[in-house]
């Protein structure tokens, strides 16, 4: 019935036109970043660069002090990786115990986690900042990693719990009967089977942590341990309509996530469609 007709072909072309217009901002971004200082100010936004000028990128990557972009990339990588690691480890073991052991306290813990997902984070930010400041956890990566693990653990536990519920207990029972300890059964048998859950947790959490500006601004602002968005914000704030440089920073900030997206786009989209609503 719904076959590929001439009309469908027309529709396909039409949608491509709409999509290309929708993605036009990327075109401006790329052409402007490769223009020289003068050219970026004087030529039209639509005009392609006369010749590829990498100066904007070189200047952005060699800026020092609080505008040190490579250092902020390193900070972002450390914080994101640390948070993902913690969320996978603590989230999976907690969810495992909560779903597999059916006691009153595990049920209560699960509700504790569920309510924490709904609880908006805004109100907690001020006390968390004061608490972190008083124990020296602001302005460094360890504090930020702990904060993120705390913020995103409910999501991680919830996602793992729904995956564990769908996994039969026979694998780990067989492992334990064969002589594995609970720790071995979990880390050698159960966790490897949970690769899809780990992928979803890592992608969702990684994206939230990597792109975050608000929490990084509050907990790391003014320190040398800036993440990429905060460094981008301070750097761009110091530039006046030097759009080639601004866009060079923007492109540099996008490269890691875009590479990751191209590599795992299907997983990304599934994680979003399925993961967020459990």
């Amino acid at each position: 019935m719904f076959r590929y007709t001439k009309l469908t072909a027309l529709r396909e072309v039409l949608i491509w036109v709409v999509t290309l217009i929708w993605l036009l901002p990327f075109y401006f971004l790329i052409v402007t970043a490769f223009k020289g200082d003068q050219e970026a100010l004087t030529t039209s936004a639509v005009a392609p660069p006369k010749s590829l000028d990498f100066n904007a990128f070189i200047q952005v990557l060699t800026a020092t002090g609080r505008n040190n972009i490579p250092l902020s990339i390193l900070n972002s990588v450390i914080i994101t990786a640390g948070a993902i690691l913690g969320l996978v480890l603590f989230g999976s073991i907690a969810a495992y115990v909560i779903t597999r052991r059916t006691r009153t306290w595990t049920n209560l813990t699960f509700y504790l986690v569920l309510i924490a997902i709904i609880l908006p984070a805004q109100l907690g930010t001020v006390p968390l900042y004061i608490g972190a400041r008083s124990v020296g956890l602001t302005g460094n990566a360890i504090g930020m990693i702990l904060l993120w693990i705390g913020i995103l653990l409910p999501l991680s536990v919830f996602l793992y719990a729904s995956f564990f519920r769908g996994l039969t207990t026979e694998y780990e029972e067989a492992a334990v009967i064969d002589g594995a300890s609970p720790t071995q059964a979990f880390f050698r048998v159960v966790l490897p089977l949970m690769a899809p859950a780990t992928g979803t947790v890592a992608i969702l959490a990684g994206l939230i942590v990597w792109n975050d500006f608000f929490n990084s601004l509050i907990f790391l602002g003014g320190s040398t341990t800036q993440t990429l968005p905060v460094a981008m914000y301070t750097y761009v704030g110091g530039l006046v309509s030097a759009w080639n440089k601004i866009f060079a920073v923007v492109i540099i900030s996008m490269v890691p996530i875009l590479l990751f997206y191209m590599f795992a786009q299907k997983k990304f989209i599934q994680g979003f469609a399925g993961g967020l609503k459990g």
Partner: protein
Amino acid sequence: MTVTIEQDATRTLTVPPEARRTPRPRGRRPLISYGHWWWALPAIVLVIGVHYAATLTGGFFAFTNWTGLGDWQFIGFDNFVRIFKDPTLLGSVWNTLFLAFGTVIVTNVIGLGFALAINRTLKTRYVLRTLLFLPVVLSPLAVAYIWKFIFQFNGPLNGFFVLIGLPDLQKVWLADPTWSIWAILVTVVWQQTGFVMVIYLAGLASVPVEIEEAAALDGANIWQRFRHVTVPAIRPSIAIATTLGIIQGLRIFDQIFALTGGGPAGATETLATQVYKQAFSLGQFGFGSALALVLTLIILVFAIIQQYATRDRDAVGRA
């Protein structure tokens, strides 16, 4: 290590064989131990500390005049009276709601349009889906800078108006008190539409082709098929997309900070930007907490609606 294994193995082997076949009753000790109870401890401590203790403390701060240093007093509802008497702050409440509902309405209309357009039959639908989803994964700050360029006076948007012969429509978009909030709306919509589209694509996957074909054979036109076959099937998607969108929309911060910083003259301030400014720039922790409490209550209302609306989670397929 080896000792533990043997202990466990022995315990497992001493279980009487008939007990193994009976299903484990709830609450009774299981045959094998599924992990150790203390595995849940780090998560419980962090969740209580970061979510519950912090939120409760913040709720308490909202009724004080604490500045983050030194003494503080319990001042009751004074902070809230101040919020609702200050036109800028009251305006920020309206801006928050405007942006939340505005983004939800526009992203859902465009997102559903995209989803319907690329749903079936198109040969390149996966490429289109990947491309249209792309803005979702980028940092809101980076997206905001691209749009800041588009909205500047010499930017592509004004250039476009000149090109189509309507030079009178040119504006300094981000410095215009009327239009700056619309510019933020456009930026947020552009970034989030792909996400909404994917939710709808997931929902559309659950629409049975046979029913749609049957309706088409019975002479239902495209609008009737949409109205009576598609919409009922994607109702759970609509609930998820709208409520998630409102909750996200209420906390918009990055884009405003990058595009206007709350200006011109407070025209684009929202509760989220005000919380930051009052608490962290001006050091008014008590007052900032009161603003956060107002925002929290608004979010909570919609979050509860969302939980209610999406309880029927199984009805939605995966993308």
